[in-house]
């Protein structure tokens, strides 16, 4: 672009407009760069095509005006507020109409994620040192919760998932919902307040804090020290279902139980009524079977003992009888009768056994005993 100047003698003079245009054109040759600073005086209006703010150098307070197309700014959803640190990507520009120099930003990124992470890590260590996350502090969830507090955003899918999960599994449970901000600078305080309100609900058994996934910044309130402490000191056990599996906001560590999703939280917090019924039925029929089996085995054992009892005395008598017979047999063998049966005889005189022929005299009366009896005789 050729910038026309008027000549006054040998003096070359530019109009303001021409000067500005000339500078603007020259500036356009500069490359696109990243500039770091702190956002101040953020101005955004529906009517305006651009969003304006000033980037301030925190070191010495140097300032740089920045403009950015509003659609682009909104599309980034940074939720910027004064004081936030950003990296702005753009090129220098002169607003020709006013001769104002500024940065025309094409993109913006929050800067300070590292700072946030470091602060978070410090807070985590501090609270851990206090024992706020220790396993001994974890309370068991109630088995039969009657009243369940739910801290969640007002139209969040998280809320719907938790409610649906609880209703399906355990219809008798009563859920008290405390709607609150779950994002932005007011979220932490609002969640603390919601927890306080819930703690006043009579008969409250357990609290679920549910929030769907979000960016690191979105979830930052759930690592806020006030919120984390409020969860740790909650009068009833707390289930934290914040963000996705890979996010670990500090509230997850302080809660008694962590759930990976809102649906999982519902599963953790109430039992499955139908499954409980089935288990109970199984146990009940097992009970009857067990009682019958035990009775049967006792009857069997008793009958066996009785059978043996019945047989034992007869066996005993039988054995005695056999013993007797045996003894009788032996007695018979040893008695002289067997010998007599073979043809021998016992001769007695005056009841004394005659053992010598010379001990009897002729005419003496003797008695002869043979196998089957006795008879008298006279010696010749």
């Amino acid at each position, binding site marked *: 672009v050729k910038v026309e100047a008027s000549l006054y003698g040998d003096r070359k003079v530019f109009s303001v407009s021409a000067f500005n245009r000339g500078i603007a054109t020259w500036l356009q040759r500069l490359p696109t760069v990243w500039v770091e600073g702190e956002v101040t005086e953020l101005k955004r209006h529906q009517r305006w095509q651009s969003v304006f703010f000033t980037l301030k150098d925190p070191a010495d307070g140097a300032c740089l005006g920045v403009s950015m197309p509003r659609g682009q700014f909104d599309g980034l959803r940074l939720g910027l507020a004064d004081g936030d640190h950003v990296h702005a990507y753009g090129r220098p520009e002169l607003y020709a109409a006013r001769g104002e120099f500024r940065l025309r930003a094409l993109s913006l990124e929050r800067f300070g994620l590292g700072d946030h992470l470091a602060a978070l890590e410090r807070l985590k260590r501090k609270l851990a040192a206090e024992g706020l996350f220790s396993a001994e502090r974890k309370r068991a969830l109630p088995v039969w919760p009657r009243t369940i507090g739910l801290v969640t955003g007002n139209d969040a899918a998280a809320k719907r998932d938790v409610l649906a999960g609880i209703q399906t599994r355990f219809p008798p449970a009563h859920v008290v919902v405390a709607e609150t901000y779950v994002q932005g600078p007011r979220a932490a305080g609002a969640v603390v307040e919601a927890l306080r309100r819930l703690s006043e609900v009579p008969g409250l058994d357990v609290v679920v804090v549910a929030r769907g996934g979000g960016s690191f910044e979105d979830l930052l309130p759930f690592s806020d020290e006030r919120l984390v402490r409020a969860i740790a000191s909650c009068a009833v056990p707390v289930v934290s279902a914040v963000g996705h599996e890979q996010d670990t906001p500090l509230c997850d560590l302080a809660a008694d139980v962590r759930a990976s999703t809102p649906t999982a939280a519902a599963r953790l917090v109430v039992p499955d009524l139908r499954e409980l019924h089935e288990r109970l039925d199984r146990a*009940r029929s097992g009970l009857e079977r067990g009682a019958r089996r035990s*009775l049967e085995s006792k009857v069997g054992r008793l009958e066996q003992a009785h059978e043996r009892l019945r047989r034992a005395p007869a066996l*005993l008598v039988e054995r005695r009888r056999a013993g007797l017979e045996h003894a009788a047999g032996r007695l018979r063998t040893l008695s002289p009768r067997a010998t007599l049966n073979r043809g021998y005889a016992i001769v007695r005189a005056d009841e004394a056994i005659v053992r010598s022929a010379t001990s009897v005299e002729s005419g003496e009366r003797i008695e002869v005993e043979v196998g089957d009896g006795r008879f008298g005789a006279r010696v010749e």
Partner: protein
Amino acid sequence: VSSEPTFEAAQKELEQIVQRLESGETGLDEAIALWERGEELYRFCLGKLDSAQGKIEQLASRVEASKP
């Protein structure tokens, strides 16, 4: 059985009696006495089991009746 022993005590005594009888070391008179005692214990145990069975049936029918 005079002083209501438990089922288990009665059963134990019965089984000890059976063992003694089967060992054959008892006198005849003692064996008869033991047998009588054993029969008494058997009747006692049987009565206990019968009443247990009765209770089981009663409970089972009540459970059956209360099923939805």
